[in-house]
């Protein structure tokens, strides 16, 4: 029997062919982590092709899970454990593995043909090239096939249970209780007893193999985390986004309307809302991105909370309609789940390069609020906030998420919806002008115009994309009126109240400030923590509101000798901060379609801090 070693955190990556069921395997291991009370963060990584050629590096799908006993901020960048179901999975992922890390590889797939496909001249499982790792070369396929023999599956189906065998082995290796997954398999395959029993048998066989084999010298235990008290669930960013939109509509007592066109990595927002018809949600899968936002704007005009969700290519197409929404001054939420661009780019990979498009990518002067989500569960709050601002200020609002936030999952302390602020949409019911007339562009104290819904007698009015006369809303080509309206629209957005930028500076005397936005929150927080553990001082601040920016932003930036701005783009926030505040911030950019590496950022921060202190 192997000893049990206690770890405070571990990063595990499951990697295989895109048909090998790695996403399910990772997801199940995450659920097991929940039952032992671990904190966790996950990151699925899959190719753009649904089934890329088998056994190729292009076809490798993986799922990374970071579990720990304390406050996990990211899915981690260096796995400690790699499960490689074939040579391609090994080839694609070995470079990331921590030196000395543990590899479990399926020998059955390491055939000369498969090795050759990915350019291995000799078998890495036998040629000693992996001597620096703890290698467990096991015939996962063969053992699975034997474990399910009694169920008389075809050879192919029998071999497909190898992911459950691997999961069973990991369950044993990490001292988890196999009961939860056996229950899950019972429920998942209730309608297919043969498949159910085969998967359970393979899973149990993997678990028992761990128990009886002597190849593992140690088992591991990751104790539960001391999370804040409360009831938790696992949530992905896209699901949290959908729930946040629903919560805002409910708190505003309005119906929710989503117009969307399927696009990676935003589609799950549409899927989640399409499944919520019993919550009163109307979803419209449009013929294109333009119709999706057009219908959402139409629904808003008719009194719904109109929302559209998309990714970069869709944002480009929606641009003109967003400008119309600015002109019409109607509530509208635009969710942009960013992916690496330009053009089709890397559709399944993450990036933050739509920031300047969100802020400025329209013709004419068309300012609007921009809000960024910083983690999967934070998508809920970002969506709620965006909808509230859209409704209260009658404006389109862009919410920026990204593939990393959208597909990643983490524990989420379930909010009590009744404690969320109520949103008053202030729908117009009576004339507001002289002689019982209705003036659609007469503004309230927030500079918001009245929202008068069709069907309301006496408030009939016409709106459109042509410039409006101040107050009356009639068509106006008057030069001075145009200038008035441009400035009024800008003043309305500038006047939106956003909380001050909070600074985390534990020692209070750091000289380096790291400013981020969006999903770099996790990597920046984790890197800063490591830097501090090493005895150095560093401050961090994270921007949720990109427009309007918090009023104290300039003061915060000027307080530090050096401001570093890490982004998954070529320096878009840095450009903005420099322009707006004349502060010489240092841009730190990574554009690989991957989250910023904690290890790299930590090392670069240490160099920066040490160089600075030496000056």
């Amino acid at each position, binding site marked *: 029997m192997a000893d049990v070693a206690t770890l405070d955190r571990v990063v595990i990556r499951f990697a295989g062919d895109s048909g090998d069921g790695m996403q399910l395997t990772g997801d199940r291991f995450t659920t097991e982590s929940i039952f032992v009370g671990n904190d966790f963060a996950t990151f699925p990584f899959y190719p753009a092709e649904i089934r890329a050629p088998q056994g190729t590096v292009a076809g490798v799908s993986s799922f990374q899970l970071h579990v720990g006993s304390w406050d996990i901020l990211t899915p981690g960048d260096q796995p400690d454990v790699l499960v490689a179901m074939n040579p391609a999975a090994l080839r694609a992922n070995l470079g990331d593995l921590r030196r000395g890390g543990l590899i479990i590889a399926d020998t059955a797939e390491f055939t000369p043909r498969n090795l050759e496909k990915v350019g291995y001249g000799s078998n890495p499982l036998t040629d000693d090239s992996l001597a620096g790792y703890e290698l467990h070369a096991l015939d996962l396929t063969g053992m699975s096939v034997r474990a399910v023999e009694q169920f008389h599956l075809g050879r192919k189906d029998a071999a497909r249970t190898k992911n459950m065998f691997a999961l069973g082995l990991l369950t044993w290796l990490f001292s988890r209780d196999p009961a939860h997954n056996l229950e899950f398999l019972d429920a998942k395959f209730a309608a297919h007893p043969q498949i159910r029993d085969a998967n359970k048998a393979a899973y149990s066989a993997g678990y028992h193999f761990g128990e009886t084999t002597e190849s593992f010298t140690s088992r591991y235990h990751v104790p539960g985390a001391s999370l804040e008290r409360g009831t938790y669930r696992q949530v992905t960013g896209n699901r949290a986004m959908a729930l946040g939109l629903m919560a805002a509509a409910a708190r505003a007592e309005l119906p929710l309307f989503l117009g969307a066109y399927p696009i990676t990595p935003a589609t799950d927002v549409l899927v989640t809302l399409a499944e919520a018809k019993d919550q009163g949600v109307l979803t419209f899968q449009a013929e294109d991105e333009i*119709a999706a936002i057009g219908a959402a704007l139409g629904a808003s005009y008719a009194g719904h909370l*109109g929302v559209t969700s998309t990714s970069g290519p869709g944002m480009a197409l929606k641009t003109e309609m967003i400008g119309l929404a600015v002109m019409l001054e109607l509530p509208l939420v635009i969710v942009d789940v960013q992916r690496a661009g330009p053009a089709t780019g890397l559709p399944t990979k993450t990036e933050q390069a739509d920031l300047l498009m969100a802020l400025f990518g329209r013709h004419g002067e068309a300012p609007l609020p921009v809000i960024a989500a910083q983690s999967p569960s934070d998508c809920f709050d970002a969506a709620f906030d965006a909808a509230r601002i859209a409704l209260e200020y009658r404006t389109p609002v862009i919410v920026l998420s990204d593939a990393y936030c959208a597909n990643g999952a983490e524990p989420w302390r379930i909010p009590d919806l009744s404690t969320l602020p109520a949103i008053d949409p202030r729908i117009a019911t009576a004339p507001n002008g002289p002689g019982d007339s209705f003036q659609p562009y007469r503004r309230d104290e927030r500079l918001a115009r009245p929202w008068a819904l069709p069907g309301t007698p006496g408030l*009939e009015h016409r709106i459109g994309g042509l410039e409006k006369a101040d107050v009356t809303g009639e068509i106006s080509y008057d030069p001075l009126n145009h200038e008035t309206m441009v400035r009024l629209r800008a003043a309305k957005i500038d006047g939106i109240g956003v909380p001050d930028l909070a600074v985390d500076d534990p020692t209070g005397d750091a000289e380096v400030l790291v400013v981020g936005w969006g999903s770099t929150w996790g990597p920046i927080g984790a890197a800063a923590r490591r830097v501090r553990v090493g005895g150095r001082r560093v401050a961090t601040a994270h921007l949720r509101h990109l427009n309007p920016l918090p009023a104290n932003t300039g003061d915060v930036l000027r307080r530090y000798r050096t401001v570093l701005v890490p982004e998954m783009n070529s320096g878009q926030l840095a450009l903005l901060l420099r322009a707006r505040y004349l502060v010489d911030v240092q841009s730190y950019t990574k554009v690989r379609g991957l989250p910023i590496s904690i290890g790299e950022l930590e090392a670069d921060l240490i160099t920066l801090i040490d160089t600075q202190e030496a000056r």
Partner: protein
Amino acid sequence: MTATSGLAGVPLAVTPLTRKDLASDQEVRWCPGCGDYAILAAVQGALADLGVRRENLVIVSGIGCSSRFPYYMNTYGVHSLHGRAPALATGIALARPDLSVWVVTGDGDALSIGGNHLVHALRRNVNLTILLFNNRIYSLTKGQFSPTSERGTVTKTSPEGSVDAPLDPITLALGAGATFVARAIDSDRELLADVLGAAAGHRGAALVEIYQNCPIFNDGAFDALRRKDAPALIRLRHGEPITFGDGLGVVRDPGTGRLAVARVAEVGTDRVLVHDAHDPDPTTAFALARLTDAPLTRAPVGVFRAVTAPVFDDDARAQVRMPAASDRLAALQRLVTGPDTWTV
């Protein structure tokens, strides 16, 4: 339960509206002699005749001369983006069954930049009435050939004649599976009123092409049809034989099944095709539309097709179940909480 009238669910006016009630206070700014004036008057009259409340009428337009229409109507209205009116109107129709939603568009707006949205609004059968003003020219940008301009049309951007093959809105709509397709002419008030009334009463997407004269950039394009008794006019009336001009009738070739024009006196009354607008098969309606020729010497007008089919917005709403207001937050709380939770 399936509603059968396009106006089902739209509240009725207590006191009947007149044409004047529907005119806004805005000065109408089309060119003198523009066909749009006659259409505006006819639409105001037709909408008043529907008997529904003014505040429940919504007119959505795109961009172009015709798309200024909403400003002149004392109803709710949105002057939207070039080509995108059907998209906004779809959102409005989905959101609100109590509204009568009208789209006003032109040949460039609906068939060129917005062709995609038109096709999808029609094939989905959204409960909208779409008025397509076809003047066969881009007028607001001062005279360029449009997707309905005849080949050879000389304009500023086709100085040696257009080499574009034109698109016919009627055949396009029929091809898209439209459930109501009709054609009218700006100069024939009576026909226009009839067609508009029938279109408004249709549950589902109704496309009405209106031949509209542009006196500035394409004057006289429809002169062959302007007189009420013009021999070129093929008036389609459901259940009646299709005859026109001086003793002409539409017949079906028994060999090929194709439609042709023949002298009734020669072929006999029995062989003249009887118009069936309710035929579920659009083949004959398509063949009738193809009788429209170029240069224009004959064109069918009236209702080509009016059939019943599932209505997109009705069916979409039928799937949505809004919890009672008192239970809404609790229902959402259950979804937010989900089935797999753990407590710390």
